[in-house]
């Protein structure tokens, strides 16, 4: 999933300060799964904002809504119907959600309430670990299904470096050394021969391309 974290309350408060009528829009998919921008989190943030306004004697009107997927136009249509009744939209979607809404609603100011972080897996309750940088050229099978671009601090393709200690990374001693894990898993699955090859330089054009990457699938187009 795409993971995100809610911005600190003072930052959100400052960004919506000029506005009285606020439409809060959550997203029911990735950011709901990581407890940052789903229906519950929208309700919680809305209450905090209302209480804060009441305490300071400010007038505010907050409408809460959560769409299934903020990055898909047909769901954003639910927002369009209400948008012109509000001064601002406070989005609890990821960066794709905010930008998709901006595309559909060209005249409305949309403010992000989340910091989008990464593509991650749920490690345990309340713990999400990044494991994909979306490089566009997946070679996970070569690396025992552990991505060195994402999980090695230096993104080494021919690691490990000389700095790991007891299987932990020197950059973040709490993190496991990705290469320690790769080698262990290759050994355990009898695939050590791939460790002898010098893995060639990556094709970053597949990640950076010529600006934003675009997928066009003729078979999916109306």
């Amino acid at each position, binding site marked *: 999933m795409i993971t995100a974290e809610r911005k600190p309350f003072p930052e959100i408060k400052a960004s919506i300060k000029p506005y009285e009528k606020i439409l809060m829009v959550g997203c029911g998919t990735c950011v709901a799964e990581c407890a940052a921008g789903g229906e519950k989190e929208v309700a919680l943030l809305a209450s905090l904002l209302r209480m804060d306004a009441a305490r300071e004697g400010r007038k505010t009107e907050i409408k809460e809504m959560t769409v299934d997927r903020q990055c898909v136009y047909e769901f954003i249509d639910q927002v369009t119907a209400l948008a012109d009744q509000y001064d601002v939209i406070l989005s609890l979607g990821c960066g794709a959600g905010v930008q998709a809404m901006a595309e559909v609603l060209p005249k409305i100011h949309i403010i992000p309430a989340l910091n989008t972080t990464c593509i991650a897996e749920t490690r345990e309750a309340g713990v999400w670990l990044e494991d994909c940088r979306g490089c566009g050229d997946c070679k996970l099978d070569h690396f025992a299904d552990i991505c060195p671009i994402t999980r090695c*601090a*230096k*993104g*080494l*393709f*021919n*690691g*490990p*470096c*000389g*700095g*790991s*200690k*007891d*299987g932990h990374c*020197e*950059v973040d001693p709490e993190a496991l*050394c990705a290469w*320690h894990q790769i*080698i*262990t898993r290759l050994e355990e699955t009898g695939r050590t021969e791939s*460790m*002898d090859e*010098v*893995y*060639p*330089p*990556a094709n*970053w054009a597949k990640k950076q391309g010529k600006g934003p990457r675009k997928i066009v699938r003729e078979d999916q187009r109306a």
Partner: protein
Amino acid sequence: MTESRLKKVLTMGHFAVTAECGPPKGADPEVIRSKGRLLKAYVDSVNVTDNQTGVVRLSSLASCVILKGEGLDPVLQMVTRDRNRIALQSDVLGASALGIRNILCLSGDHQSLGNQPEAKGVFDLDSMQLLQVVRRMRDKGVILGGDQLSSMPELFIGAVENPFGDPQHYRVTRLAKKVRAGAEFIQTQCIYNLDRFKEFMREVVNRGLDGKVAILGGVTPLKSARMAEYMAKNVAGMDIPAGVIDRMKASPAKGERQEGIRIAVETIQALTQIKGVRGVHIMAIEWEEAVPELVEKAGLLPRP
């Protein structure tokens, strides 16, 4: 035409002596020159670090040129942390054009550990890939992507290896990979645990790697018991046995540096006896003055 003194010394079968020289956190060339003058008669080559530990310093290439002007044979360290493949390949050509004849390819310490923790780490290539790229530039005159160079860089190509890194049983395989990628000489991490290093070298010799690459054992003289304890605890991939720390602790405060020198001299002398070790690389961190004494006491003077 200049040639690599390091390569020449190794080819002639001498036990090579190199030392590390850290550029200053400032623009004064005199700091480099005086370090160079201090080391000149005692070492075959001087290895210049490239913003080590991610701290901004006078550039490695500029320092190398200054040292060359003082008559030394510099080894240019080049890390992949700060430059993409365009800049790396360009600097390889530039170094050769400026008369630098040795290059050491590394990934570099992670930017978060230095004084620019908000920097974007580049790591377009890793050290293994950089080795391969430099080797092809030199031997085939070809850059990444296949374009032909109008003339080839002349460089003696090196890499680093940590015999004490994790996972331990993988270290010789990794060295073999660096040799396959193109390394002609190797500088090792500081050696304090000679038993473990000997074990590493036995495996190196068993695999026939000693015939393919010149290994320079890394030696760092300890300044104090505190430094030893700090390094053992905080520097990842560093193996300092309790016996070494005890020796430092047992010496009186005033004699600690001398004890550090004694341990380093004994280590260098032991290295000269280990099959496959072709030289020593002395990393006297901010203590370059120790190098002449070390080399002299280890019986490695005069230099060829």
